[in-house]
Protein backbone atom coordinates (compact mmCIF):
# COMPACT_ATOMS: atom_id res chain seq x y z
CA UNK A 1 0.00 0.00 0.00
CA UNK A 2 1.64 3.19 -1.12
CA UNK A 3 1.19 6.44 0.73
CA UNK A 4 -0.21 8.14 -2.35
CA UNK A 5 -3.07 5.67 -2.54
CA UNK A 6 -3.84 6.09 1.14
CA UNK A 7 -4.11 9.82 0.70
CA UNK A 8 -5.80 9.63 -2.69
CA UNK A 9 -7.33 12.91 -3.78
CA UNK A 10 -10.45 10.89 -4.52
CA UNK A 11 -11.08 11.01 -0.76
CA UNK A 12 -11.90 14.66 -1.43
CA UNK A 13 -14.62 13.78 -3.95
CA UNK A 14 -17.67 16.00 -3.85
CA UNK A 15 -20.30 14.73 -1.41
CA UNK A 16 -18.40 11.63 -0.24
CA UNK A 17 -19.98 10.49 3.05
CA UNK A 18 -17.46 10.77 5.89
CA UNK A 19 -17.06 9.85 9.51
CA UNK A 20 -16.40 12.60 12.10
CA UNK A 21 -12.70 11.69 11.68
CA UNK A 22 -12.94 12.47 7.98
CA UNK A 23 -12.68 8.88 6.73
CA UNK A 24 -14.97 7.78 3.92
CA UNK A 25 -18.00 5.84 5.14
CA UNK A 26 -19.31 3.06 2.93
CA UNK A 27 -22.88 1.85 3.24
CA UNK A 28 -22.15 -1.58 1.76
CA UNK A 29 -19.07 -3.56 0.74
CA UNK A 30 -19.59 -2.99 -2.98
CA UNK A 31 -19.33 0.75 -2.39
CA UNK A 32 -15.91 0.29 -0.81
CA UNK A 33 -14.84 -1.87 -3.76
CA UNK A 34 -16.04 0.72 -6.25
CA UNK A 35 -14.20 3.42 -4.31
CA UNK A 36 -11.01 1.32 -4.24
CA UNK A 37 -11.16 0.60 -7.98
CA UNK A 38 -11.57 4.28 -8.71
CA UNK A 39 -8.65 5.22 -6.44
CA UNK A 40 -6.52 2.57 -8.16
CA UNK A 41 -7.42 3.61 -11.72
CA UNK A 42 -6.79 7.26 -10.91
CA UNK A 43 -3.41 6.38 -9.34
CA UNK A 44 -2.54 4.49 -12.53
CA UNK A 45 -3.36 7.52 -14.65
CA UNK A 46 -6.36 5.99 -16.44
CA UNK A 47 -8.12 9.29 -15.84
CA UNK A 48 -7.27 12.60 -14.24
CA UNK A 49 -8.76 14.17 -11.14
CA UNK A 50 -10.57 16.75 -13.25
CA UNK A 51 -12.06 14.08 -15.47
CA UNK A 52 -13.27 12.17 -12.42
CA UNK A 53 -14.67 15.25 -10.71
CA UNK A 54 -16.61 16.17 -13.87
CA UNK A 55 -17.99 12.64 -14.33
CA UNK A 56 -19.06 12.41 -10.68
CA UNK A 57 -20.58 15.87 -10.74
CA UNK A 58 -22.74 14.96 -13.74
CA UNK A 59 -24.15 11.97 -11.85
CA UNK A 60 -24.68 13.55 -8.44
CA UNK A 61 -26.48 16.51 -9.96
CA UNK A 62 -28.93 14.47 -11.95
CA UNK A 63 -32.60 15.01 -11.13
CA UNK A 64 -34.52 12.34 -9.18
CA UNK A 65 -31.69 11.57 -6.80
CA UNK A 66 -32.64 10.16 -3.39
CA UNK A 67 -33.54 13.04 -1.08
CA UNK A 68 -31.41 11.57 1.72
CA UNK A 69 -28.37 11.05 -0.53
CA UNK A 70 -28.49 7.28 0.03
CA UNK A 71 -27.82 6.67 -3.66
CA UNK A 72 -24.45 8.45 -3.57
CA UNK A 73 -22.40 5.37 -4.42
CA UNK A 74 -24.83 4.41 -7.17
CA UNK A 75 -23.94 7.78 -8.68
CA UNK A 76 -20.28 6.98 -8.04
CA UNK A 77 -20.51 3.69 -9.95
CA UNK A 78 -22.47 5.35 -12.77
CA UNK A 79 -19.74 8.00 -13.02
CA UNK A 80 -17.02 5.35 -13.12
CA UNK A 81 -18.88 3.40 -15.83
CA UNK A 82 -19.41 6.54 -17.90
CA UNK A 83 -15.76 7.50 -17.61
CA UNK A 84 -14.59 4.03 -18.64
CA UNK A 85 -16.94 4.03 -21.62
CA UNK A 86 -15.71 7.51 -22.52
CA UNK A 87 -12.10 6.31 -22.38
CA UNK A 88 -12.88 3.32 -24.58
CA UNK A 89 -11.98 0.91 -21.76
CA UNK A 90 -15.44 -0.68 -21.55
CA UNK A 91 -18.80 -0.47 -23.26
CA UNK A 92 -22.29 -0.46 -21.78
CA UNK A 93 -23.37 -3.71 -23.45
CA UNK A 94 -20.40 -5.66 -22.09
CA UNK A 95 -20.86 -4.24 -18.58
CA UNK A 96 -24.58 -5.04 -18.59
CA UNK A 97 -23.98 -8.58 -19.88
CA UNK A 98 -21.34 -9.23 -17.23
CA UNK A 99 -23.62 -7.82 -14.53
CA UNK A 100 -26.33 -10.34 -15.46
CA UNK A 101 -23.76 -13.09 -15.68
CA UNK A 102 -22.52 -12.36 -12.14
CA UNK A 103 -26.11 -12.45 -10.86
CA UNK A 104 -26.72 -15.84 -12.44
CA UNK A 105 -23.37 -17.05 -11.10
CA UNK A 106 -24.30 -15.93 -7.57
CA UNK A 107 -27.64 -17.75 -7.67
CA UNK A 108 -25.99 -20.91 -9.01
CA UNK A 109 -23.33 -20.99 -6.29
CA UNK A 110 -24.08 -23.13 -3.25
CA UNK A 111 -23.58 -21.67 0.19
CA UNK A 112 -20.02 -21.86 1.45
CA UNK A 113 -18.45 -21.78 -1.99
CA UNK A 114 -16.89 -18.69 -3.49
CA UNK A 115 -18.99 -16.97 -6.12
CA UNK A 116 -17.09 -17.15 -9.40
CA UNK A 117 -18.10 -15.95 -12.83
CA UNK A 118 -17.55 -19.45 -14.22
CA UNK A 119 -20.50 -20.59 -12.06
CA UNK A 120 -22.90 -18.81 -14.41
CA UNK A 121 -24.76 -21.70 -16.10
CA UNK A 122 -24.93 -19.75 -19.36
CA UNK A 123 -21.15 -19.56 -19.38
CA UNK A 124 -20.68 -23.29 -19.00
CA UNK A 125 -18.02 -24.58 -21.35
CA UNK A 126 -16.26 -21.28 -21.66
CA UNK A 127 -12.74 -21.26 -20.34
CA UNK A 128 -12.60 -19.29 -17.10
CA UNK A 129 -10.27 -16.37 -17.18
Amino acid at each position, binding site marked *: *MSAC*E*TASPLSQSDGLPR*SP*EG*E*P*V*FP*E*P*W*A*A*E*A*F*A*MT*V*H*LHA*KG*VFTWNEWAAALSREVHRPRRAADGSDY*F*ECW*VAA*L*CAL*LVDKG*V*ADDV*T*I*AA*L*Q*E*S*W*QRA*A*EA*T*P*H*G*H*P*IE*LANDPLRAGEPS*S
Partner: protein
Amino acid sequence: MEHHHDDHDHHGHHHDNRYSDMQARVRALETVLSEKGLIDPAAIDAIVETYETKIGPRNGARVVAKAWSDPEFRAWLAADATAAIASLGFTGRQGEHMRAVFNTPETHNLVVCTLCSCYPWAVLGLPPVWYKAPAYRSRAVIDPRGVLAEFGLVLAEEKKIRIWDSTAELRYLVIPERPAGTEGMNEETLSTLVSRDAMIGTALAGAAT
Protein backbone atom coordinates in the same frame (compact mmCIF):
# COMPACT_ATOMS: atom_id res chain seq x y z
CA MET B 1 -15.54 -28.67 18.64
CA GLU B 2 -19.13 -28.38 17.58
CA HIS B 3 -20.04 -27.36 14.10
CA HIS B 4 -23.42 -25.77 13.71
CA HIS B 5 -24.67 -25.87 10.21
CA ASP B 6 -27.89 -24.00 10.20
CA ASP B 7 -31.06 -24.45 8.35
CA HIS B 8 -30.15 -23.39 4.84
CA ASP B 9 -30.14 -26.99 3.64
CA HIS B 10 -33.86 -27.22 4.36
CA HIS B 11 -34.77 -24.64 1.76
CA GLY B 12 -34.24 -26.53 -1.45
CA HIS B 13 -36.02 -23.89 -3.50
CA HIS B 14 -34.11 -21.03 -1.98
CA HIS B 15 -30.87 -19.56 -3.22
CA ASP B 16 -28.44 -18.51 -0.53
CA ASN B 17 -26.52 -16.31 -2.87
CA ARG B 18 -27.92 -13.26 -4.51
CA TYR B 19 -26.15 -10.24 -5.88
CA SER B 20 -27.99 -6.95 -5.87
CA ASP B 21 -27.78 -4.95 -9.10
CA MET B 22 -25.05 -2.80 -7.60
CA GLN B 23 -23.02 -5.71 -6.25
CA ALA B 24 -23.18 -7.38 -9.66
CA ARG B 25 -22.36 -4.17 -11.50
CA VAL B 26 -19.23 -3.60 -9.42
CA ARG B 27 -18.16 -7.20 -10.01
CA ALA B 28 -18.76 -6.67 -13.74
CA LEU B 29 -16.49 -3.61 -13.73
CA GLU B 30 -13.85 -5.57 -11.85
CA THR B 31 -14.03 -8.32 -14.47
CA VAL B 32 -13.67 -5.91 -17.40
CA LEU B 33 -10.79 -4.05 -15.74
CA SER B 34 -8.98 -7.26 -14.71
CA GLU B 35 -9.27 -8.68 -18.22
CA LYS B 36 -7.75 -5.48 -19.58
CA GLY B 37 -4.96 -5.67 -17.04
CA LEU B 38 -5.96 -2.32 -15.54
CA ILE B 39 -6.55 -3.55 -12.03
CA ASP B 40 -5.02 -6.21 -9.87
CA PRO B 41 -7.60 -7.67 -7.45
CA ALA B 42 -4.95 -7.88 -4.71
CA ALA B 43 -4.27 -4.16 -5.05
CA ILE B 44 -8.00 -3.42 -4.80
CA ASP B 45 -8.28 -5.59 -1.69
CA ALA B 46 -5.34 -3.70 -0.18
CA ILE B 47 -7.02 -0.34 -0.80
CA VAL B 48 -10.33 -1.57 0.63
CA GLU B 49 -8.51 -2.85 3.69
CA THR B 50 -6.76 0.49 4.20
CA TYR B 51 -10.06 2.28 4.35
CA GLU B 52 -12.23 -0.31 6.02
CA THR B 53 -9.90 -0.75 9.01
CA LYS B 54 -10.38 2.92 9.73
CA ILE B 55 -14.13 2.57 9.93
CA GLY B 56 -15.04 1.21 13.31
CA PRO B 57 -17.99 -1.18 13.47
CA ARG B 58 -19.55 1.06 16.07
CA ASN B 59 -23.08 -0.30 15.71
CA GLY B 60 -22.19 -3.82 16.80
CA ALA B 61 -19.80 -2.49 19.44
CA ARG B 62 -22.68 -0.56 21.00
CA VAL B 63 -24.77 -3.73 21.06
CA VAL B 64 -21.94 -5.54 22.87
CA ALA B 65 -21.37 -2.69 25.34
CA LYS B 66 -25.06 -2.63 26.19
CA ALA B 67 -25.10 -6.41 26.64
CA TRP B 68 -22.23 -6.04 29.12
CA SER B 69 -23.92 -3.24 31.06
CA ASP B 70 -27.59 -4.08 31.00
CA PRO B 71 -28.66 -7.59 32.10
CA GLU B 72 -32.17 -7.11 30.76
CA PHE B 73 -30.85 -6.20 27.33
CA ARG B 74 -28.47 -9.15 27.50
CA ALA B 75 -31.35 -11.53 28.15
CA TRP B 76 -33.36 -10.00 25.31
CA LEU B 77 -30.35 -10.31 23.02
CA ALA B 78 -30.01 -13.98 23.90
CA ALA B 79 -33.71 -14.63 23.32
CA ASP B 80 -34.31 -12.49 20.22
CA ALA B 81 -31.20 -10.80 18.87
CA THR B 82 -32.97 -9.47 15.78
CA ALA B 83 -35.44 -7.46 17.87
CA ALA B 84 -32.92 -6.43 20.53
CA ILE B 85 -30.50 -5.11 17.91
CA ALA B 86 -33.31 -3.42 15.98
CA SER B 87 -34.34 -1.62 19.19
CA LEU B 88 -31.05 0.29 18.96
CA GLY B 89 -31.87 1.35 15.42
CA PHE B 90 -29.59 -1.07 13.58
CA THR B 91 -31.37 -3.22 11.05
CA GLY B 92 -30.00 -5.17 8.16
CA ARG B 93 -31.18 -3.83 4.85
CA GLN B 94 -31.86 -7.31 3.63
CA GLY B 95 -34.02 -8.10 6.63
CA GLU B 96 -31.75 -10.84 7.84
CA HIS B 97 -32.15 -12.44 11.24
CA MET B 98 -29.42 -12.05 13.80
CA ARG B 99 -28.37 -14.38 16.53
CA ALA B 100 -26.01 -13.40 19.33
CA VAL B 101 -23.57 -16.04 20.55
CA PHE B 102 -21.94 -15.38 23.91
CA ASN B 103 -18.35 -16.15 24.77
CA THR B 104 -17.92 -17.62 28.24
CA PRO B 105 -14.92 -18.81 30.25
CA GLU B 106 -15.64 -22.30 28.83
CA THR B 107 -16.57 -21.53 25.24
CA HIS B 108 -15.25 -19.32 22.45
CA ASN B 109 -17.39 -18.60 19.38
CA LEU B 110 -16.10 -18.08 15.85
CA VAL B 111 -18.19 -17.10 12.83
CA VAL B 112 -17.13 -18.25 9.40
CA CYS B 113 -18.38 -17.44 5.95
CA THR B 114 -16.73 -16.92 2.59
CA LEU B 115 -19.42 -14.68 1.27
CA CYS B 116 -20.19 -11.01 1.55
CA SER B 117 -23.84 -11.84 1.19
CA CYS B 118 -23.79 -13.60 4.55
CA TYR B 119 -22.07 -10.84 6.44
CA PRO B 120 -24.11 -8.52 8.70
CA TRP B 121 -22.35 -5.34 7.66
CA ALA B 122 -25.13 -3.17 9.09
CA VAL B 123 -24.00 -4.33 12.51
CA LEU B 124 -20.34 -5.19 12.04
CA GLY B 125 -19.24 -2.69 9.41
CA LEU B 126 -17.36 -3.92 6.35
CA PRO B 127 -16.05 -7.46 6.29
CA PRO B 128 -12.30 -7.97 6.45
CA VAL B 129 -10.82 -9.05 3.13
CA TRP B 130 -9.49 -12.36 4.48
CA TYR B 131 -12.97 -13.28 5.71
CA LYS B 132 -14.10 -13.88 2.16
CA ALA B 133 -11.17 -16.13 1.28
CA PRO B 134 -12.33 -19.75 0.78
CA ALA B 135 -9.16 -20.94 2.53
CA TYR B 136 -10.13 -19.10 5.70
CA ARG B 137 -13.51 -20.73 5.92
CA SER B 138 -12.41 -24.29 5.27
CA ARG B 139 -9.40 -24.01 7.58
CA ALA B 140 -11.45 -22.37 10.33
CA VAL B 141 -13.80 -25.35 10.28
CA ILE B 142 -11.02 -27.95 10.24
CA ASP B 143 -8.49 -26.27 12.51
CA PRO B 144 -10.04 -23.31 14.36
CA ARG B 145 -7.31 -23.27 17.01
CA GLY B 146 -4.60 -23.00 14.36
CA VAL B 147 -6.43 -20.23 12.49
CA LEU B 148 -7.04 -18.26 15.69
CA ALA B 149 -3.37 -18.63 16.64
CA GLU B 150 -2.48 -17.00 13.31
CA PHE B 151 -4.58 -14.04 14.38
CA GLY B 152 -2.58 -13.94 17.60
CA LEU B 153 -5.38 -15.46 19.64
CA VAL B 154 -4.14 -18.50 21.53
CA LEU B 155 -6.91 -20.16 23.55
CA ALA B 156 -6.46 -22.56 26.42
CA GLU B 157 -6.59 -26.21 25.35
CA GLU B 158 -9.64 -26.86 27.50
CA LYS B 159 -11.63 -24.02 25.98
CA LYS B 160 -14.29 -25.27 23.61
CA ILE B 161 -14.56 -23.56 20.22
CA ARG B 162 -17.90 -23.32 18.50
CA ILE B 163 -18.01 -22.57 14.79
CA TRP B 164 -21.05 -20.76 13.39
CA ASP B 165 -21.74 -20.77 9.71
CA SER B 166 -23.68 -17.69 8.62
CA THR B 167 -26.38 -18.11 6.05
CA ALA B 168 -28.38 -15.68 3.98
CA GLU B 169 -31.20 -15.90 6.53
CA LEU B 170 -29.31 -16.01 9.80
CA ARG B 171 -26.20 -14.09 10.74
CA TYR B 172 -24.22 -14.18 13.91
CA LEU B 173 -22.76 -11.65 16.28
CA VAL B 174 -20.20 -12.84 18.81
CA ILE B 175 -20.59 -11.19 22.23
CA PRO B 176 -17.06 -11.29 23.62
CA GLU B 177 -16.37 -11.62 27.33
CA ARG B 178 -16.20 -8.32 29.16
CA PRO B 179 -12.54 -7.60 29.92
CA ALA B 180 -11.45 -7.51 33.56
CA GLY B 181 -10.96 -4.10 35.12
CA THR B 182 -13.73 -2.39 33.16
CA GLU B 183 -16.33 -2.33 35.95
CA GLY B 184 -16.52 1.46 36.22
CA MET B 185 -16.78 2.13 32.49
CA ASN B 186 -19.89 3.48 30.81
CA GLU B 187 -21.31 2.00 27.62
CA GLU B 188 -19.65 4.50 25.37
CA THR B 189 -16.19 3.76 26.74
CA LEU B 190 -16.87 0.03 26.75
CA SER B 191 -17.84 0.11 23.09
CA THR B 192 -14.37 1.37 22.19
CA LEU B 193 -12.94 -1.93 23.50
CA VAL B 194 -14.93 -3.95 20.96
CA SER B 195 -13.29 -4.46 17.59
CA ARG B 196 -14.97 -5.91 14.55
CA ASP B 197 -12.69 -8.93 14.81
CA ALA B 198 -13.87 -9.50 18.40
CA MET B 199 -17.45 -9.67 17.08
CA ILE B 200 -16.43 -12.29 14.49
CA GLY B 201 -14.48 -14.21 17.10
CA THR B 202 -10.95 -13.81 15.78
CA ALA B 203 -9.99 -11.50 18.65
CA LEU B 204 -10.98 -10.78 22.24
CA ALA B 205 -12.50 -7.54 23.47
CA GLY B 206 -9.98 -5.01 24.62
CA ALA B 207 -7.21 -6.72 22.68
CA ALA B 208 -5.45 -4.74 20.03
CA THR B 209 -6.23 -6.09 16.59
